[in-house]
């Protein structure tokens, strides 16, 4: 089989849509165009039936009741709705929230927004692997804490938070727990009851579904105030005409994940390990960012000392990955996740994230190893830092000129 170039190893950014998902959606993009809220004719009934089937499919994947699933435009909206919606609904209890610096910006920026409007937010300090433990949460909780929001799996390094234990601490103090499970759902078993979460965010395009659609799980009895007002769709929590084809796609993607996830995770995990071992065996001074074992099976975040991430990506031309380097972001700030974990800036700039998935092959992994090793060696030859380090100079003691 010939390689399809460039090789895509950026599945945590987005995934290609599974053809079976597209097939399920086609009918609802064409002949079955009804509005699921049209309660007065056959077009509406059929659209509604399709949405309800998808609701069951999503619920089944995470062990929820269909009624506990609210469709949204994606995980960013789900995060916003869960956090702002609970903060507003529980204003009488208090105005304290707890989160962590490794969260996605959809969570962090929402928390910052609430801070501007008078709420108090505690940012927990993760360990060197990006994990928060239950004891830290327990210590930060007060009687006025309304919500704790901590992700299940980190998008950049793949580290898993011990949500189950955290949930027990949160419940003890009468607060609610939201978890951004965008990266976890579809990659590993997620059961809302076993985890003990009250709210959970899901995105379709991270599990081979379409972009622009997602879901929020909200446990029965938990009040969430709408952030989008209008026709009162989705049990008054999220108004707006339902994206029927997108929702059908999310449902189909969830059903496929439920059937194939166990096998797929085994295969992807073996490929990821092959990639990591292959690189580490041939290059020195490469460090793993994230937890060595408590980690998503598809993710590998590595720092290549003395070379800069964007340059490294450009050298390996035919491989699509991502980097924590500031040079890839408009803000010129390196990855906030690696910074929160205490990774020094120079290794933050030198980081690459490889994320594998359903369509990754051994051939692609082997090709990538060759590319990475060659590119890193070439750029080290070009790097004044590598030359200095080899010459015995301690780079931490050099007086650099900041600019």
């Amino acid at each position, binding site marked *: 089989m010939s390689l399809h170039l460039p090789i895509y190893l950026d599945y945590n950014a987005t995934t290609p849509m599974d053809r079976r998902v597209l097939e399920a959606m086609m009918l609802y993009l064409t002949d079955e165009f009804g509005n699921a809220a049209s309660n007065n004719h056959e077009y509406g009934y059929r659209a509604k039936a399709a949405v309800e089937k998808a609701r069951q499919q999503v619920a089944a994947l995470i062990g929820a009741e269909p009624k506990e699933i609210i469709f949204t435009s994606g995980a960013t909206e789900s995060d916003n709705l869960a956090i702002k919606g609970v903060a507003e609904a529980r204003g009488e209890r208090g105005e304290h929230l707890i989160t962590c610096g490794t969260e996605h910006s959809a969570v962090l920026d929402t928390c910052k927004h609430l801070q501007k409007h008078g709420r108090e937010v505690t940012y927990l300090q993760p360990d060197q692997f990006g994990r928060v433990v239950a004891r830290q949460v327990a210590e930060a909780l007060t009687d006025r804490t309304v919500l704790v929001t901590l992700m299940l799996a980190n998008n950049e390094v793949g580290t898993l938070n011990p949500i189950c234990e955290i949930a027990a601490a949160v419940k003890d103090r009468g607060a609610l727990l939201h978890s951004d499970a965008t990266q976890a759902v579809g990659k590993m078993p997620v059961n809302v009851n076993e985890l003990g979460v009250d709210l959970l965010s899901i995105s379709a395009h991270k599990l081979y579904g379409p972009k622009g659609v997602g879901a929020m799980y909200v446990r029965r009895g938990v009040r969430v105030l709408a952030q989008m007002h209008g026709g009162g769709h989705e049990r008054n929590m999220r108004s707006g005409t339902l994206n029927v084809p997108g929702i059908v796609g999310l449902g189909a993607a969830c059903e496929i994940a439920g059937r194939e996830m166990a096998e797929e995770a085994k295969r992807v995990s073996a490929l990821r390990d092959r990639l990591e071992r292959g690189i580490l065996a041939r290059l020195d001074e490469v460090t793993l960012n994230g937890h060595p074992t408590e980690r998503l099976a598809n993710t590998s975040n590595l720092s290549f000392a*003395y*070379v*800069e*991430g*964007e*340059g490294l990506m*450009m050298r390996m031309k035919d491989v699509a990955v991502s980097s924590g*380097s*500031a*040079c*890839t972001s*408009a803000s*010129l700030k*390196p990855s906030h996740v690696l910074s929160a974990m205490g990774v*020094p*800036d*120079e290794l933050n*700039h030198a980081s690459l994230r490889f994320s594998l998935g359903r369509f990754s092959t051994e051939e692609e992994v082997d090709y990538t190893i060759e590319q990475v090793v060659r590119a890193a060696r070439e750029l080290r*030859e*070009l*790097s*004044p*830092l*590598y*030359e200095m380090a080899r010459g015995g100079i301690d*780079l931490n003691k050099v007086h*650099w*000129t*900041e*600019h």
Partner: protein
Amino acid sequence: MQYSEKVVDLFTNPRHVGTMDEDDPNVGTGVVGSPACGDVMKLQLRIEDGRIADAKFKTFGCGAAIASASYITELVIGKSIEQAEAISNREVAADLQLPPVKVHCSVLAEDGIRGALEDWRKKQAAASASA
């Protein structure tokens, strides 16, 4: 990042990569930037009879930083010291069509020339003082 063809070419086939003897009195070495900021450039100039006879660089940085450094070595060789000092980052940024967020890479290149010439002048002053 989408770069101009020129940047891609200079990044892929950088010119004048290397290291000169730092102790040579005719060589000026400038090291600018910092690892924490994500780019460090070392530029070395060999000066003979008031002209830049040769230039070498090494860069830790993104595509634009490496391309800017390579480009500056090409610009500077053969120029008089005054002409070399007159090279501005704007010229580099314009010639390479650097995206706005990458203009600082051209500033680094300009700083590299200044740093290298400053080092050369110090050496010259030290040499004439001891002579």
